[in-house]
């Protein structure tokens, strides 16, 4: 296991970066999906676009965050592929 070929090393680095990105985005996802929802009643004391914030987050806010998360993932992963010179186009 100790001595890795450059290729092995490259594979490992690629996978670790993928995992980091996935983990980071999932953490944001978890915050929006479960934590914000858990405190929804409290968030309702604030308003956004003239709507109670807790309601807005559940109805539309989280949806918009999800779209951004997925766009980020696609963008960053495709960039990672290019960095490693492995993009498939």
């Amino acid at each position, binding site marked *: *296991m100790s001595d*890795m*070929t450059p*290729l*092995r090393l*490259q*594979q490992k680095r*690629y*996978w670790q970066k*993928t995992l980091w990105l*996935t983990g980071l*985005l*999932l953490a944001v*996802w978890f915050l*929006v*999906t*479960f934590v914000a*929802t*858990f405190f*929804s*009643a409290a968030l*309702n004391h604030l308003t956004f*676009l*003239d*709507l*109670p914030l*807790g*309601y807005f987050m*559940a*109805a*539309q806010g*989280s*949806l*918009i965050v*999800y*779209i951004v*998360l*997925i*766009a980020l*993932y*696609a963008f960053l*992963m*495709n960039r990672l*592929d290019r960095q*490693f*010179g*492995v*993009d*498939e*186009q």
Partner: protein
Amino acid sequence: MSNRLRLILGEYGPALFVALFAVGFTLTVLVLAWLEQRGMSQRWIGYVFLFLTLLVFSLVGLFTRTSDIAEYFVAGRRVPAVYSGMSSGTDWLSAASFIGLAGALYQSGYQGLAFVIGWTGGYVLLALLMAPYLRKFGQFTLPDFLATRYGGHAIRLIGAVAVILASLVYVVAQVYGVGLITSRFITLQFEIGVYLGLAGVLVCSFLGGMRALMHAQAAQYVILLIAYITPITILSFDRTGIPAPPVLYAKAMHQLVDIENEVFNRPEEVAVRALYAERAKRLEQQIDNLPGSLVEERKRMGDQIEKMKASGASVRDIVLLERERRALPATPQLAHAKWRNDLKDALHRSAMPVSDTEPFALPDDGQSRANFLALIFCLTIGTASLPHLLMRYYSIASVSQARRSVFWSLFFVALVYLLAPAYAVFVKLEVLKHTIGVPLESLPAWVNAWTKIGLVSVDDINSDHLLQWAELTINPDVIVLATPEIAGLPYVISGMVAAGGLAAALSTAEGLLLSITSALSHDIYFKMLRPDASSSWRLIVSKSVMVAVAILAASIAVQRPASIVDMVAWAFSIAGAALFPALVLGVFWPRANRAGALAGMIAGLSVTVFYIARVKFDSIPLLGWYGIGMHPWFGIDAAAAGIYGVPVGFVTNVLVSLLTKPPGPESQQFIERLRYPRILYNRAETSGRAIDV
């Protein structure tokens, strides 16, 4: 599209197709609107829209028919991201999204938002954990993936069973939606409508498989989006002067909260709620005193009828009471089931309605915070493991296209979802303004039209011949379909919404049928029973299996087992509990092995099905089971059964994997192939072999 057309149009073919279709559809609607003014009957408008929707399916099926296996199951694996995003978005937008979502928000306010969060939040899991890896794997079905990762026929079989079960429950909900629409808009019998709708689906998938599905669904998306946006935009413009409902429904929301506060506190509303509370108490006693109470009830009604006859009461009242007596349940078991439902209903009506924006308002009614979060959990996990959705990622041109495709898919889905809260708010406002406190004789026409098919009911419990909020029941599945009528728009808009609902239900039904079919014909028949079958024979088998499954789904749907949203939620729990742990661990945890995956899938699936069956149904007359109902664990609804099933699946998978020996080198190699881009992997193949541990 034929090959010659593809040559001429090149990459712009799909975009041109969608644009042309949008223009054509809009023109058709305008022509019909003109004809309506000239006196075309409502019934004929309904027919035109129904057949138009079916025609699109059939024509696309006809033009894209194929007898090539790869074309049939994965559309030749060369679909570009935007186009496949649009069509898998349509695949996703089911009757539950189109018809059910706004209804759920209307009925339960904040509580219904669990569906919005869950259904869209699941896309993040899908994008991060599933889509790229499935595309990298690139076979035909989900069980293919499981069988290759873990090895063996057993896992393929369990996978196929889970796929079939989840998709079947889901497809029944779609078919039910089709029946609902046809029975209202072209006044066909519910049952006939169900079969007619299925016939349309079959023509398309029968001929063209996944390739036809891609094109048909892109066309369906156009119908669906126009149909969903138009009525609510007109309504919002008419009532508030702002034609942008998704962003600016706040004004209407404030109005709604004010009116609600005023209406719900009227003395007659309070009195009606008290009457329902009394009814609930009476029902409780009756249930406790079964079977004696049933005999007593029958006798009491008999006496009352005699008394009325003697005192010369109106014939109408006597007939009504006699009908009620005939409707009494025949056996104590049936009475138990029926009265338990009545009790739930009475309790619900006797409670003070809550404001739309208030979260977790009625903990006793299954509206606790725990329930809400549990439902979100099940829906997200389910979204990321629904076979008909995951299958789509096999058909995309490359891994990076697959990542983009998830984005487009959620984008197209979001266009519809962002409007749903506005629907609920505006419709509730209209209902409160124009039906509550109105004499029963002069209720708006839509109340009658929908009462006729049993989806709206008025129960004048205090006999004041005025409608109170608690006396009105609207099946949530009606809200979107009835919006044009409630808003007083021309009938052609109603027809258009119906066409949109049909498009949503049919396109999803089709995707589901294809996933069931491929599980049966590809996994069970071809891979397990007859590996030597020729490819033309395999297609014949899939096509006949598809017809059989469609008929089965229709015959379950005509029994009307539950509301659309309920059935859909079950499908998510089932798919999530059975498939999600095995799929995710399969990619991210190399130590997971065959025994673990098998045990985890079986455990997750059984816990979920057990929970749904026992919490939701007190009796299953078909199987002769009575009194199997149980109290939910920690008050979690049957809809969120996956909150128990998914963790059980994960824990079992991990424990059993650790207790048995690690998987062999084949699955290590398989995981590497999934994780690294092809070039990195191929280099490893040739140069890295030597250092493989």
